[in-house]
């Protein structure tokens, strides 16, 4: 009787172990949804791009709430930005006065530590400088939230 009980217990344990091992082989796809009205903290970005980004988020009516405190936020925006003013050569030879803008931002979930959204923009001749690239980021963030 005791032996039969042992065998059944062993069978159960082996089955459980095999199931657990098979489940561990495949990683589950993360749920990358950004809820409307999520609290977002914009971390300082080079050349004050974070200020332009905050303005753009307000201007483009992105459905998120900007918080000045990281502790209160659900998500965090980090990134990098680079501006290159038009050089004399560019003005004289190419006849172009506009600056070259590059920016890349990532939105990560503070709790889980997962990056849920990312975007990069490059404008060879930006009419409104950093404002244009920040608005481009905000527009695509809005699309990502509303298009879910």
């Amino acid at each position, binding site marked *: 009787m005791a032996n039969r009980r*042992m065998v059944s*217990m*062993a069978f159960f*344990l*082996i089955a459980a*172990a*095999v199931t*657990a*091992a*098979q489940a*561990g*082989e*495949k*990683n*589950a*796809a*993360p749920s990358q949804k950004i809820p409307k009205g999520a609290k977002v903290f914009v971390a300082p970005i*080079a050349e004050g791009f974070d200020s332009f980004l905050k303005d753009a988020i307000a201007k483009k009516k992105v459905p998120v709430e900007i918080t000045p405190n990281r502790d209160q936020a659900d998500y965090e925006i*980090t*990134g*990098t930005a*680079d501006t*290159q003013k038009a*050089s*004399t*050569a*560019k003005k004289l*030879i*190419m006849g*172009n006065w506009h600056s*070259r803008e*590059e920016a*890349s*931002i*990532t939105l*990560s979930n503070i709790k889980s*530590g*997962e*990056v849920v*959204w*990312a*975007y*990069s*923009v*490059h404008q*060879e001749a930006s009419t409104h400088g950093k404002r244009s690239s920040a608005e481009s980021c905000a527009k695509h963030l809005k699309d990502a939230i509303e298009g879910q």
Partner: protein
Amino acid sequence: MQHKRPPNSLILAALVLSIATYPRFARSQENGSAQDPSKPANEAKPASEIAKEAAPDLKQASSDEGKLATVNNAKIPSYSKVFVAPMMGGFENYIIAGLRNKKVPLTVVVDRSKAEYEISGVSESEKAGWAKMLFIGVQNSNEEASIKIAHLKTGAVIFGYSVHKTNSMRGRQSAGEACAKHIKQIVIE
């Protein structure tokens, strides 16, 4: 004299453990990793020795603008957790954006301790000078980047890729997307 036999519960536990760990062992054998997963590969070994060991396994393949190298056709399981280490000029952000743009099935995490793989590398951007504008009539920059992917547990470098773009239309964004496109090739979907 009585022989002490191990208790049945111990034998059972050993059996269960061996069955549970077998798939991982088999997978690591498939990937060609001859290292013991329980021991970090770079333990008590200088970096130069590790590089020497990894180099013979690297298989190179040239693409249109870059060079790709994978170790024994190593693959990354989909939705593995990847940490992108900070790079010069914030290039890590462009790689993350590229991974998303190219729909690479990986989960990027901001905490290195939660990750299974790490992407690290260098990048350089060279803006167009007056001579380039005058003689060629081009104002686009030249971009260079080189990345590698390492398995954090074993410390083994499983993938390397370098890209050089002359007159890059979208600057660092193009280089980041090129890296992401080639990372996608080694991810099992």
